[in-house]
C-alpha cells in the first residue's frame, strides 16, 4: 500500500528503496531506535516493498563515517545482518567495506553474502578509480553483487571528512570492470548532478539512484533524457520525504507505465542477484 496525494492508501506496484541506512546503539546517537522505526513507518506510508540498506560502521562514533575502521565495519555489518533476520520481509543488505583493508573487505563480503547480503557498499574511504577498489569490484562481479558507491556530483575540490569521488571517477572504475554493476549514489545528494549524467552516459554498468535531499526541478527530467529510465533506481537515503516527492514528480512527467515500473523496482530486480525480492514478483503479479 502507499499514500495517495489525498492521503488515502492505495494499492500499488512494488517499490524498492535502493539506498537506505539503519542505525544502532553504537552509532553515537540516543534516538537510533526512533530513526529506524521512522524509516519503516515512512516506508509503509510510501509503499516501500524492500529497503536495501547498509550500516556505516559506527557513523563517526569510534571511527569516521566515511573511513570506518575494520572493527567498526564488522560491527555495522553485524547489525545489518541482524536487522535482516528480524525484518526478513522488508529489508535486504549491502555489506559495507573499507577498501584500504583489502583482506578484511574481501572477507566481509564473503562472510555477509553467505548470510544473505545482496550488494556491496563503498563509502568515500578511497577514490573510486583507485586500484585498491579493483579486487572488490572483481569479487562483486564474480558474485553478481551491485556496488553502491557514495558519490559527490562533480568533485571540484576536496571536502572534509571524506575522500570523495564523482561520476567521472566511478566511470573509470566501471570501465575497468564491465562485468560489475555499480550504483551511483544519490544524484540529489550534493554537488552538480548535471555533470554526472554526461560523465556516466557511456558507462552502461552504472545505475544512478535518485535519492538525496536535492529536489531541483529539471534533475529528473535530465536524468531520463540523458540516461533513460532503464538506468535509474528509486531510493531515499536520509530524506524519505524527497524520495516521495520524486515519486510524485515522476508520476506527472508523462513516463510510460513500463518506465515507471523500471524506476520503481524492475531495474533493481534486474541488477541484484536473482530471487532477492520475492515479494516484488508476487505484488507485481497481483497488481497487473
Amino acid at each position: 500500500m502507499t499514500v495517495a496525494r489525498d492521503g488515502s492508501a492505495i494499492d500499488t506496484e512494488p517499490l524498492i528503496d535502493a539506498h537506505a541506512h539503519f542505525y544502532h546503539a553504537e552509532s553515537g546517537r540516543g534516538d537510533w531506535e526512533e530513526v529506524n522505526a521512522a524509516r519503516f513507518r515512512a516506508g509503509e506510508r510510501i509503499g516501500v516493498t524492500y529497503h536495501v540498506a547498509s550500516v556505516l560502521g559506527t557513523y563517526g562514533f569510534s571511527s569516521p563515517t566515511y573511513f570506518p575502521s575494520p572493527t567498526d565495519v564488522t560491527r555495522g555489518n553485524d547489525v545489518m545482518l541482524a536487522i535482516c533476520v528480524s525484518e526478513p520481509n522488508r529489508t535486504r543488505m549491502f555489506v559495507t567495506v573499507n577498501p584500504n583493508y583489502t583482506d578484511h573487505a574481501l572477507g566481509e563480503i564473503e562472510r555477509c553474502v553467505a548470510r544473505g547480503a545482496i550488494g556491496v557498499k563503498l563509502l568515500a574511504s578511497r577514490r573510486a578509480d583507485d586500484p585498491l577498489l579493483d579486487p572488490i569490484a572483481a569479487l562483486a562481479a564474480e558474485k553478481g553483487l551491485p556496488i553502491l558507491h557514495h558519490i559527490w556530483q562533480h568533485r571540484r575540490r576536496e571536502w572534509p571528512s571524506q575522500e570523495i569521488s564523482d561520476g567521472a571517477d566511478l566511470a573509470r572504475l566501471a570501465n575497468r570492470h564491465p562485468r560489475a554493476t555499480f550504483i551511483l549514489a544519490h544524484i540529489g545528494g550534493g554537488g552538480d548532478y548535471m555533470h554526472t549524467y554526461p560523465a556516466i552516459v557511456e558507462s552502461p554498468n552504472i545505475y544512478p539512484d535518485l535519492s538525496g535531499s536535492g529536489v531541483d526541478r529539471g534533475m529528473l527530467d535530465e536524468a531520463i533524457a540523458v540516461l533513460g529510465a532503464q538506468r535509474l533506481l528509486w531510493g531515499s537515503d536520509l530524506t524519505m520525504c524527497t524520495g516521495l516527492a520524486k515519486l510524485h514528480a515522476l508520476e506527472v512527467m508523462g513516463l510510460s507505465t513500463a518506465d515507471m515500473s523500471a524506476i520503481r523496482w524492475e531495474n533493481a530486480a534486474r541488477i541484484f542477484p536473482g530471487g532477492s525480492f520475492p515479494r516484488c514478483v508476487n505484488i507485481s503479479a497481483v497488481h497487473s
Partner: protein
Amino acid sequence: MIDVNALIGPYPFRHVPHPDPEVLVRVLDREGITSAWVGHLPSAFYRDPTAGNRELALRLAPYADRLHAVPTIRPDWPLWDRALNVAAAAGAPAIRAYPPQWGMGPHDGSMRELALAVGERGMALLLTVRFEDLRQRHAMDTAGDLSAAAIRTLARAGASVRLVVTAASREMIEEVHWSLTADEQRRVFWDISWIWGPPEDHLAKLFRTIGAERFVFGTHWPLRLTQTPSANLDLLPDDLLGVSLADVRTICPAAATSVSAKKR
C-alpha cells in the same frame, strides 16, 4: 493552501525549466494549491530591482486572482520608500529582500528600517535563506546563506515586524526561535520547503517543539519540486497527520486582504 514561496523568471546559475506564470498556475491546479505569493527570481541578483518589479507586475496581471506579486525592495537604494508605498498600494501581501546578495551584514541598519516600514504598512518581510544547496553552487555564487543572526536582529526590530523566512532548515529555525522572546517568536513564520522529513523527522520535531502554527506552506518553485512540502506533510507521524499550519491570513493585514480579494 497558499504557497508563500514561489518565483518566476530565470536563475542566473543554472537552467530552470519554464519558470513562467502560466506554468505556475497549471502547477498550482495540479497540486491543489489555491494561490501563491510570487516573487521575481532575477531581481535577487539585480543591483536595482525596480525593473524586475515592473516585469513581475506585468506578467502576473493576467493571473491576479491566483498569483500575488511580492516585489523586491532594496533598502539602501534611493527612493526605496516610494517603491514600498507603490507595493502597498498595489496590495502586495509581502516584500522580498535579499541581504546576502546585496552584501548586507546581520546588523545592517537599512534592513532594520525596511523591516519596520514594511510592518507599519501591514505587510510581511519575506527573507530567503538559500536558493540552492551550498554544495552545488556556481563558483560565482558567493553570497552565502542568510544567517540566523540577521533573522533574529530583524525579528527584534519592533512590534510591527512580521517575517516570513523561506528555505531554512531545522538548525537555523531552532537557533532563531529559541533566541527570541515569546512576542518576538510570534513575529516569525517559517516555510517548510527545506525541512527534512523521515527518518530524521525534523519537521515533526519542529511541530512538537515550536508548534505547527509557526509554519507556512512554501514550495520554492521553480527551483525545487513542488511536490516536496506536500510529501513531507504526508509522511508526518500519525499523531501529527492533518495538523494545521499557520493561516496565512493571520500573518499580517495585507495577507488577509490579498486572500479576501482572491476569493471575491
